[in-house]
């Protein structure tokens, strides 16, 4: 044991002396996490995309079209472009020809056309055209999703207006007014309110009056939705609960109530996952680099000198393993402290659980570094293999991207990686606030991975030529 500790002391001393190792192990990850924080917007309160240029051509005379444009302007995801300047410097509304040119010239990559037949009596529903130059498919899908959300959340009365237009076509103007007037009269008699105003609302496609403050002139309109609105408010159990931002009655035909059950108190939820994932990835790189030091010691003849003295290969292996664990623990702790400094991560609330996950993750990573050294014929091969495996395992294990977004097969494979269990462990502590006892199963899996990988590494070392 004392031989192992002497060699461990040597490794720590050597590491402390190497400025390059210190920089690569600590400074580079901290700088990269800081930069990634900016890239992923961890310093902002809203994590979604912002300011994506969206050209809008309004060829419709419907008042609702302008309502839609106003709603899109209010959406932070977009920066709306509705006009262009001619050579004389005079602004004019965009035309479809303009946006096609703009898309081809990559002035913007998305354009929404509100055509003249936005609402038509010929068919039920709305008619939009969405033009894209999808250089990035993820961006295109994101924009399409935000656009649909904005349309259906903010201007659902467009659908009502389309229905009214179609009804007018089939009934004729006179019978249409008569039909709406009859309905408005019945509503007025049953619930109160001004029949003429109710008829006007129905004709505009707004079948259910606003849930917001009712017009002072007609307080009775509240009776149509007031109790429901009150019920919704009462059902919301926490301030974090949020409802769809619809301001219109139709918007509540399909109603989503979003409630965050876990992690409500987490100051920076995305950072909780990002820092943990990147900490593991950088640790894997660090221990892989330290494993390649095996080959330097072999090539320099140090192993010969050691093994000619009362030192056995097991002493060298365990010293290197322990060094990896200590290095990992220090590196993870440093990165989480940086995470607290940069993003306000709550690392001290469950320090015991976090330490347990960090220790087991460091052990698993250190064992992984040993395996890389055990299966590689030389330092160059070890470096190349480590880079390939670390990047693959980080991607599949969810260090960069949520595993739930991946195909089923990859999700199954990810559970075989130490990155997955490490990231899950850190997220359990930092996000879900799990205690030491609650993370023990995760810690057990990581320790199991460490033991299994170390056993394979030792078996390979005994069969390989590192100590020959």
């Amino acid at each position, binding site marked *: 044991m004392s031989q192992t500790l002497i060699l461990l002391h040597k490794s720590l001393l050597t590491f402390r002396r190497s400025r390059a190792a210190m920089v690569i192990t600590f400074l580079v990850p901290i700088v990269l996490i800081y930069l990634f924080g900016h890239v992923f917007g961890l310093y902002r309160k809203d994590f979604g995309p912002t300011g994506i240029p969206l050209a809008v051509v309004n060829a419709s005379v419907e008042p609702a079209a302008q309502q839609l444009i106003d709603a899109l302007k209010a959406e932070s995801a977009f920066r709306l472009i509705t006009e262009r300047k001619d050579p004389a410097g005079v602004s004019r509304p965009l035309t479809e020809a303009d946006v096609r040119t703009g898309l081809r010239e990559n002035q913007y990559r998305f354009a929404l056309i509100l055509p003249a037949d936005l609402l038509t009596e010929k068919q039920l529903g709305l008619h939009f055209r969405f033009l894209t130059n999808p250089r990035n498919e993820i961006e295109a899908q994101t924009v399409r999703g935000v656009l649909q959300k904005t349309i259906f959340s903010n201007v659902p009365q467009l659908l009502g207006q389309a229905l009214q237009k179609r009804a007018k076509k089939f009934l004729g103007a006179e019978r249409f007014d008569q039909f709406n007037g009859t309905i408005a009269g019945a509503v007025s008699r049953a619930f109160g309110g001004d029949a003429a105003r109710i008829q006007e609302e129905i004709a505009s496609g707004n079948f259910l009056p606003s849930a917001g403050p009712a017009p002072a002139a007609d307080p009775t309109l509240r009776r149509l939705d007031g109790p429901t609105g009150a019920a919704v408010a009462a059902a919301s159990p926490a301030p974090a609960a949020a409802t769809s931002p619809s301001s219109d009655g139709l918007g509540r035909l399909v109603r989503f109530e979003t409630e965050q059950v876990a992690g409500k108190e987490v100051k920076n939820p995305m950072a909780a996952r990002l820092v943990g994932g990147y900490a593991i990835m950088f640790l894997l790189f660090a221990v892989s680099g330290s494993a390649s030091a095996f080959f330097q010691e072999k090539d320099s003849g140090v192993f*010969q000198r050691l093994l000619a003295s009362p*030192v056995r290969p097991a002493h060298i292996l365990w010293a290197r393993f322990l060094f990896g664990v200590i290095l990992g623990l220090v590196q993870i702790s440093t990165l989480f402290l940086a995470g607290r400094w940069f993003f306000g991560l709550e690392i001290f609330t469950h320090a015991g659980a976090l330490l347990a996950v960090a220790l087991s993750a460091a052990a698993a990573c250190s064992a992984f570094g040993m395996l890389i050294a055990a299966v590689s014929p030389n330092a160059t091969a070890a470096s190349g293999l480590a880079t390939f495996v670390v990047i693959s395992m980080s991607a599949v294990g969810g260090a960069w991207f949520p595993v739930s977004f991946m195909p089923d097969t990859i999700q199954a494979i990810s559970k075989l990686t130490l990155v997955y269990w490490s990231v899950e462990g850190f997220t359990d502590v930092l996000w879900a606030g799990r205690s030491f006892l609650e993370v023990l199963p995760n810690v057990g899996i990581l320790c199991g991975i460490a033991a299994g990988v170390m056993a394979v590494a030792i078996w390979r070392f005994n069969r390989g030529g590192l100590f020959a």
Partner: protein
Amino acid sequence: MLQLRSVTKRYGPLTALDDVSLDLARGEFFGLLGPNGAGKSTLMSLVAGLRVPEAGTVMLDDEPLTASHAAARRNLGLVPQHVALYPELTAEENLRIFGQLQGLRGSLLQARIDEAFAAVQLADRRRSLVRTFSGGMQRRLNLVAALLHQPKLLLCDEPTVGVDPQSRHAIFEYLQHLNRAGVTIIYSTHYMEEAERLCSRIGIIDHGRILALGTLDDLLTRLPFEDEVTFPSTPATAALASQLAAHGEIVATNGTQRFRPHPSYPLSAFFTLTESLGLPPRLFVSQRPSLESVFLDLTGRTLRE
């Protein structure tokens, strides 16, 4: 003290050592001379317990030298062929770690470290990082790192490769001092002048076999000639070579002719002949046989081929 009995070591199809037997007495300075790939380092690694022979035994003071016999291995020190030190640590930190691994602690370890620095004249650089040392300084430190525990048997595997003359001289002096103090030394080299200068007994090894074993005088007396004259192979000396064939042996190597006259053919006759052929005396070098001659006689090639 050290006994090798019918030791054979193979690496796949290659036989690195072939039925080698060797006995070393306490206090010997034994030189192992041979070209690269002859089997010197393999023999060293077997004695150091780093490798296990396929056949035969290696015993130190009647104890087998294997990886599991830590006590026996405490009696030997290995100076590897490369500079086997930690370059990011200071010279003193290196010696402290290697001393601790040999079981030394406290004041005894400190005293041995101080002695080591004094012996190789590096006391003023003890706190410098090894990577800042010159090649010669690193070699000197490499040597004393194997001596902190005062081994009975020191294995030096080509310890002066790439060393400047000053450091080489310092290393030689120190090794001779150790040998005089009773340390048995096995010194592998392909420099004949080192073996000639240092070793009390020499083994010539090639292709895994020990071809000859003895003191320098023993080896030289085995040669079938007493003198040797070398001259360049040129068109002018071609006629000379053909005439000399009747009076001795002519060996051509690397653009050089070596003439080994029969004992009955005096060198004065040789120089009379060269004068008659109009060949200037500066072309010819007359010398007593050396280890190079012995190696050439045994293998038909020079050490550096």
